[in-house]
């Protein structure tokens, strides 16, 4: 027990960050599961985080209510943005969500109520580690359930081939928007938890590079099953600490290690690290698109 306490004293914040990053990675996973590449998750986290932080600090709302409102607002913005944007495909969608993210970041940077570049300072520390992991467990469970539901299968068919899915009578717009909105909701929730973790949030913590990091977690872990993004978030958030432990100097080397891992995974393990653990004989929830690929 004492050892555990010591571990938390040293690595407590790391453990919290892993949880938050895993939640954010799952929020992006929801959109990726429907085949939509979004780079806007960080912006939704910003919306949720700032809303929740401001409500707690300036309006005196209770913690849970603030986080819930932030999450719902983020989901609503996701709905409003998603409807027009999801008509775009592939790279174009990625760029549209990216520009949305930049606009959100710049707005946050210039408003008074968000504290501008200095950030929102003085948010009470109300998020507990068990709270983060309870949320993560609930989110993981819901997503695993969602996968087996009608909506889950619709997401998957849209990811495999959107035109064919539409031809089968699936309302692709509805399901793509659903995935995007759910993703925004979860990102907003993670943002709200994050805001109450650190006393301060700044616009820099929700920029383009964060959106790219979330994508990297998903790719490295694997987007073929719900625990892939969590695994990616865990490994890559913990990696700097592990490297520090093995005595690797700071800065460039650690950064290069991140890039190298990503490169190796995409070249040799296109379905992510989870594909190492799954036996090849058993068909996975998401059959790789190789079968579909041959016709191209």
């Amino acid at each position: 027990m004492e050892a555990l306490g010591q571990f938390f004293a040293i690595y407590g914040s790391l453990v919290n960050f892993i949880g938050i990053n895993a939640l954010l990675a799952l929020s992006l996973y929801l959109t990726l599961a429907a085949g939509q590449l979004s780079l806007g998750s960080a912006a939704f986290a910003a919306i949720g985080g700032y809303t929740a932080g401001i409500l707690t600090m300036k309006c005196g709302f209770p913690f849970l209510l603030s986080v819930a409102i932030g999450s719902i607002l983020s989901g609503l913005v996701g709905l409003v943005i998603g409807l027009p944007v999801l008509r775009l495909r592939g790279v174009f969608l990625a760029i549209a969500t990216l520009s949305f993210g930049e606009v959100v970041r710049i707005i946050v940077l210039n408003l008074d109520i968000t504290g501008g570049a200095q950030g929102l300072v003085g948010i009470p520390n109300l998020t507990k580690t068990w709270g983060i992991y309870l949320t993560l467990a609930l989110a993981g469970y819901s997503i695993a359930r969602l996968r087996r539901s009608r909506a889950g299968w619709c997401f998957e068919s849209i990811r495999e081939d959107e035109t064919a899915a539409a031809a089968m009578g699936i309302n692709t717009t509805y399901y793509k928007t659903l995935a995007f909105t759910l993703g925004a909701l979860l990102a907003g929730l993670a943002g709200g938890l994050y805001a109450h973790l650190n006393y301060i949030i700044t616009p820099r913590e929700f920029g383009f590079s964060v959106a790219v990091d979330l994508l990297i977690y998903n790719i490295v872990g694997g987007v073929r099953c719900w625990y892939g993004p969590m695994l990616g978030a865990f490994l890559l958030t913990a990696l700097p600490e592990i490297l520090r432990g093995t005595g690797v100097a700071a800065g460039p080397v650690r950064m290069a290690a991140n890039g190298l891992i990503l490169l190796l995974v995409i070249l040799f393990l296109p379905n992510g690290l989870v594909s190492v653990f799954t036996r090849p004989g058993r068909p996975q929830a998401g059959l790789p698109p190789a079968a579909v690929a041959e016709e191209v």
Partner: protein
Amino acid sequence: MDLLAQQLINGLFIGSVYGLFAVGYTLVFGVLDILNLAHAAVFTLGGLLALWLVETAGLSLWLAFPASVLACGVLGLILDRVAFAPLRQRADSNFSGLISSIAMAIIFESAALGLFGARTVRFPAHTVSVHIWRWGGISITSLQVEIVAVALLLMVGLTQFLNRARAGKAIRAVAENDRTARLLGIHVDGIIAFTFFISSALGGAAGILFGLYFDSLSPDMGRSIELKGLAVIILGGMGSIPGAIIGGLAFGLSEVLTVAITGTSNLRDAVAFTVLFAVLILRPSGIFGRRKMREA
């Protein structure tokens, strides 16, 4: 009035650098339909390498410029060989290509950080002799003129090359349809590698000009131009070279005009990205794009 004219001229100068950067971006997209997010890292390395050649190796800028541009072209070849060629046969090659280009961007950026340090640096004071011409309240430096001249020369040269030269025509043939090009006896893999060479060389050239124009270079200078470059190629139409040139100039102008009108530089990027967002929603093929929206 003079102030506005001065701003417009400045906008054209910086716009020509944006254009040069975007031309390389859009060239690769036109040929491979892949967004090469490592382009900005090559841009950074180009600028820093030229500085190193001038400062440490003692070359004159007129030698350092072509040397650094060539080195960036070689980086492009490496990029193609390591990150793109292995994925070419894969069904989701635009998606996995995007990811592996992110991986290469991280590796290149960490290389820049490791080789040249994290600090902001500048070219030595007398690298280029600067005259200042004044008409009324407008002033133009010879450096600005040289930057625009070099940028335009490279862009016009590229356009002529693509239209006239045999290799240029082969690039366009591969862009149109690589299978047909292969049937016609074009060495497709060689042409793609060559495209990366040109694209990255132009990116490196843009990096040097950018460093000279703003008189500052840093390992993360690619971050902001990366997003601006995306905006430019969307505005001009993905894959369109004239579109990228005109889009770059328009983007430069819009930046300075926003500053001139609102009186602050805070909203500069917000306006640009809002325009980008609107273009994507209303006319996703861009101003000069002739292609239909591609299937993901």
